[in-house]
């Protein structure tokens, strides 16, 4: 049988992983919940932000926090750019065109990154200790990433519930015309939503790059996982994505320790398929 301490470590790591996965899923879900378009290339935007941190910190030796802020700013810029150039023109197109546009973006970003930086894996090495708590080892960067992702999600929550713009964003996802009657420009709200989604991608990028190496096909691993989490939690439901992220991260982490890393992912995906049967709308389904 497996060492219980090992298992506990897997559980803890699962929770820590869940934090960042939740952050990723929330960004994607926010955009879908409001604008009704899935950004298939979302995690590839995260990948670009990861490169931003890599260059700022590892290559140009800026302070890590500055690099992190750059990542967020890059995320916002990317969110706005994608919205203006790609999303705006296709807002009223049929869903298939919208999916293909963001899908085409995925191709474009991945190959553009390959063109610019090659396929080498780049790491951001941060000199932080590995903590030992009661016999289990926790990577400090991972812990910080978790803490910051919780903070970011809290920030998002406060933004959406306490500010006027945030409330307007929630309103426009429920009734676009009525929102216009309040004096709020729905199209501008969509732009803000994309910017916020981009910011979340930027934060996630900064948090991921200190744990994982970045390369142009990074989206190939985390992308489908993020989609799966969103679908599992009920596309459009922020709370659902939050919960689903932690469920999936646990399965991956514990499964990875019990069987193998890849099979951990596979088991998570299979559970996803099974749950599709049980609750096809997702655990906390809100929109179909």
């Amino acid at each position, binding site marked *: 049988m497996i060492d219980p301490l090992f298992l506990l470590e897997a559980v803890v790591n699962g929770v820590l992983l869940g934090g960042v996965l939740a952050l990723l899923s929330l960004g994607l879900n926010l955009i879908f919940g409001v604008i009704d378009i899935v950004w298939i290339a979302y995690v590839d935007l995260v990948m670009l932000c990861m490169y931003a941190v890599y260059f700022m910190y590892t290559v140009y030796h800026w302070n890590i926090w500055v690099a992190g802020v750059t990542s967020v700013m890059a995320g916002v810029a990317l969110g706005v750019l994608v919205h203006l150039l790609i999303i705006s023109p296709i807002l009223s197109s049929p869903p298939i065109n919208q999916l293909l546009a963001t899908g085409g973006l995925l191709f474009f970003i991945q190959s553009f990154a390959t063109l610019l930086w090659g396929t080498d894996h780049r790491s951001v090495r941060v000199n932080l200790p590995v903590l030992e708590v009661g016999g289990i080892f926790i990577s400090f960067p991972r812990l910080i990433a978790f803490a910051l992702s919780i903070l970011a999600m809290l920030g998002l929550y406060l933004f959406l*519930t306490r500010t*006027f713009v945030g*409330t*307007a964003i*929630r*309103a426009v996802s*429920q*009734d676009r*015309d*009525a*929102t*216009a*009657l*309040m*004096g*709020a*420009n*729905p199209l501008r709200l969509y732009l803000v939503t994309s910017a916020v989604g981009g910011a979340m991608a930027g934060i996630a990028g900064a948090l991921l790059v200190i744990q994982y190496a970045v390369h142009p096909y990074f989206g190939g691993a985390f992308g489908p996982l993020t989609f799966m989490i969103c679908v599992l939690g009920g596309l459009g439901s922020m709370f659902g994505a939050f919960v689903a992220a932690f469920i999936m991260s646990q399965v991956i982490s514990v499964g990875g320790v019990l069987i193998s890393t890849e099979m951990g992912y596979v088991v998570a995906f299979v559970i996803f398929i099974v749950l599709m049967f049980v609750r096809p709308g997702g655990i906390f389904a809100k929109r179909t």
Partner: protein
Amino acid sequence: MLELNRITSGYGAFTALWDVTVRVEAGEAVAVVGPNGAGKTTLMRVISGLLPVRSGRLVFEGRDLTGEKAYDVVAHGIAHVPEGRRIFPALTVGDNLKMGAFLPAARKHYRESLERVYTLFPVLAERPTQRAGSLSGGEQQMLAVGRALMSRPKLILLDEPSMGLAPVMVLRLFDLIRRVREEGYTILVVEQNVRQVLKIVDRAYLLEVGRIRMEGRASELAEQDFVRKAYVGA
């Protein structure tokens, strides 16, 4: 205050309003009545900017607002309480009212406006954190009106406020509209419930199949002929 001058508008190939001229003076309460499908809601949507105009002019307080977008029209002081209320169902009562005050000018007086609305509608004050979608029809209507008041408008458009309400609620609703009117707001209300609405307005227009057929003082029009016309459409 508000003048619609020979407005023609519609949806796609269909024309819903022909050459409509309507005037509302400051401080007045005016009604537009007519049978189903006459174009009353279309009229409201034209005024608030949700629907573009094909020909004609829309002038508000001397400013030409023809063709302006809905979110800009609100800033000029016109609040539209849409047909069917259109409150935000997943937001709380408080958030709905907050949305009403989205305009920068309205935000400055947010607390003050909120107080006023809560005083006018104590029912809303009792349940600020309740999900708006779970309110009763009458409560939702109050919320919709309150939300409109939050933008500190000069003119309030009410589109079929009594629709879907129980008779008891309808009476309370019209009483409410009268009180709002007394607060000093100018009101343009579109209604199918002719009898009730004529009791609270100064003047009324009869809209039939997209054209204004009749207009006059409410007291004069509350006679049999007009009412029969509005109900039967003949």
